[in-house]
């Protein structure tokens, strides 16, 4: 039975990126994403990919093997999207592949979308690898989100391994009663319906019990709450977004010059 939980997990290390304030890192991901929506040259996306990769491996000390293992997720969809643009975008025909035509517009736009998607995914992975999600939630409450609402995210993450275990248990219970994996699609859909409902009911039953338990402990009684671990903002965290703002501005400037 699955004990885990997330495919992507926080890697505990001591690095400048790990020490950066979680909300600043979240802002950095949005900043990188915003830049990628502005670039009109594939080279800018390529430079940004290189820079985020260097930040991950060189600054955050994420093991290169971890990046390689996740590369299917990071680049897979981007590559498919690039190929789709090769054929779908308007422009002068360059090559013919059977009934399909690759256009010059597609060859230019395709890599832009490849870098857009891949770099956004890589940057969000860097955030997950270097940030304890609890710290991120605490920093969100410090930024003004009421703790009762931020707690919903905590709870969803707390429930996640339980849900996964429950799905495995219900699947196993069904498999014991027959070879579910080899049955027809319709039968499998019916099984899916059944175990979805079981998982939902068990989840909601736990939700009711949890709500009562945390209310008994006084949750929500005060405007503020305390946390086991404190997360403090240091202005030194700002090096990350500032560096990327500079690079983005420079890339956009050079794009205008070209």
């Amino acid at each position: 039975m699955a004990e885990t939980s997330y495919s992507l997990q926080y890697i505990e290390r001591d690095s400048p990126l790990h020490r950066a304030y979680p909300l600043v890192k979240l802002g950095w991901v949005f900043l990188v994403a915003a830049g990628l929506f502005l670039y009109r040259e594939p080279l800018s996306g390529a430079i940004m990919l290189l820079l985020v990769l260097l930040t991950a491996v060189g600054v955050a000390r994420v093991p290169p093997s971890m990046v390689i293992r996740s590369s299917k997720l990071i680049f897979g969809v981007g590559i498919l999207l690039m190929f789709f643009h090769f054929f779908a975008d308007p422009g002068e025909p360059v090559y013919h592949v059977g009934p399909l035509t690759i256009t010059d517009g597609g060859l230019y736009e395709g890599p832009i979308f490849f870098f857009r998607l891949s770099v956004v995914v890589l940057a969000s992975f860097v955030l997950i690898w270097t940030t304890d999600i609890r710290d991120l939630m605490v920093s969100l409450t410090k930024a003004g989100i009421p703790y009762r609402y931020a707690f919903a995210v905590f709870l969803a993450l707390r429930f996640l391994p339980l849900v996964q275990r429950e799905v495995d248990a219900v699947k196993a219970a069904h498999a014991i009663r027959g070879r579910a994996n080899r049955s027809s699609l319709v039968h499998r859909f019916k099984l899916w319906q059944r175990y979805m409902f079981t998982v939902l009911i068990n989840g909601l039953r736990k939700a009711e019990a949890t709500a009562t338990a945390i209310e008994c402990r006084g949750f929500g009684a005060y405007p503020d709450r305390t946390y086991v671990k404190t997360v403090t903002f240091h202005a030194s965290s700002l090096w990350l977004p500032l560096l990327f703002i500079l690079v983005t501005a420079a890339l956009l400037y050079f794009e205008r010059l070209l």
Partner: protein
Amino acid sequence: MLLYLIVNLVIVVALGFIARSIGQFNKTGGGWNFDYSTRDIVIIAVIAAIAGVVNTGTSTVWTLANSSMGPLGGALLQGAFMWAYILAAWLVRKPGAALAVGIIEVAVEVLLGNPTGIASLGWGVTQGLGIEIVLALVNYRKFDLITAICAGAAASQLGTVWTAILFGWDPAFAGDVWLAVPVNLISGAILSGVIGHYLAQAIARTGLVRAAAT
């Protein structure tokens, strides 16, 4: 792109008015009540966790179909993600529940390895907003099948705005984006609206969630 956004908003609002004009309003429960109880918050969290697990698998298939075959490739599955948003909105019956599930569910998906990473937050927001707009037009006082179908279809269609932005489908050139509209609507109506509504009804019958039973 602006025209596509406007058309989408018109579709969503039209669906809201359809939901408003058919059937009767609830006399009890619902309404513009922002007072979330701890129970509501926990229900949202649990549904988001379950939907995150289920939708991560679906989103991998959808993303592959969408990025390799274009708007029509993903349209059939476009509506398969919002059943949980409808379910949460129907169980909690408060403004913002669908949007909250959308955002938290997507955050869970990001952790589980959604192939579009943090960019998927865009879908959580747009799809959640689609449901919220329809429910706002019925004053959060109608939780019947028609409203669920309209909300599911609206969410499914509004989600494609973010898809078009992220995947670079310019509706000015890509005719498929327009051709996919009816498929998106039907897919959302059935896979999210009908399924979400019947799940909520089935759960209400168990008596587990009090708000849903009222």
